């Protein structure tokens, strides 16, 4: 699975630490998600999408194109 969290974060001009604080997770979690080391839970994905004002599908997608 991949995501464009880094791009959305750059658009909003916020750091990983700021995003992590806003979402209620650690900075390491945001770093791991952006680098595809960790797949967030449904709850976390929904929180991120609500924060950026996007749908979950706009933030995350499967790598096989489905």
């Amino acid at each position: 699975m991949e995501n464009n969290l880094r791009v959305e974060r750059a658009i909003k001009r916020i750091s990983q630490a700021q995003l992590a604080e806003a979402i209620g997770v650690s900075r390491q979690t945001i770093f791991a998600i952006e680098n595809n080391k960790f797949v967030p839970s449904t709850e976390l994905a929904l929180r991120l999408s609500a924060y950026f004002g996007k749908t979950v599908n706009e933030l995350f997608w499967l790598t096989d194109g489905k």
Partner: protein
Amino acid sequence: MEKKSFLLPHCCQIIGWWLLGLVAVLCITFVIISYNAGAGAAEVGDFTRNLYAFGFYFLPNIALLLICLSREKEEDEYISFIRSRSVFIVVVFGFVGGMLLSAFAGYSFRMMSAEFVGRFMMYAQWFPNRAVLAIVYLLIFKGTLFVNKLKSRGNGE
């Protein structure tokens, strides 16, 4: 969605680390006392001996239990993921390692000398030892957190 955590509060981890520090101090003082007692080690006395038995056996186990079962300062799902992975590795380490060593010991009984087997089993019994497993778990878990912290520094702005 509120999640119930079975982990102890973070303050328990701090208590655990302090207890380990106390154990270290007890070890050092015991070494000093034993060195000074020398040939008269029997003079150390029952009370002191029992105190150190408490310090060397009971305290470290309690301390490691508190540390391993306590939350991190920032506990989220990624930290929980690393924790689960560390537990898995430790289970494999203890279970499979112990199994392989037992199999090797059974084989070596026929092929090696009794002295070698005895010495081998003396070291092999440390594999499933709970303190060793707890230390291995902490090394893996804390080590992973530390490495991730280093990697994520300067990469998020």
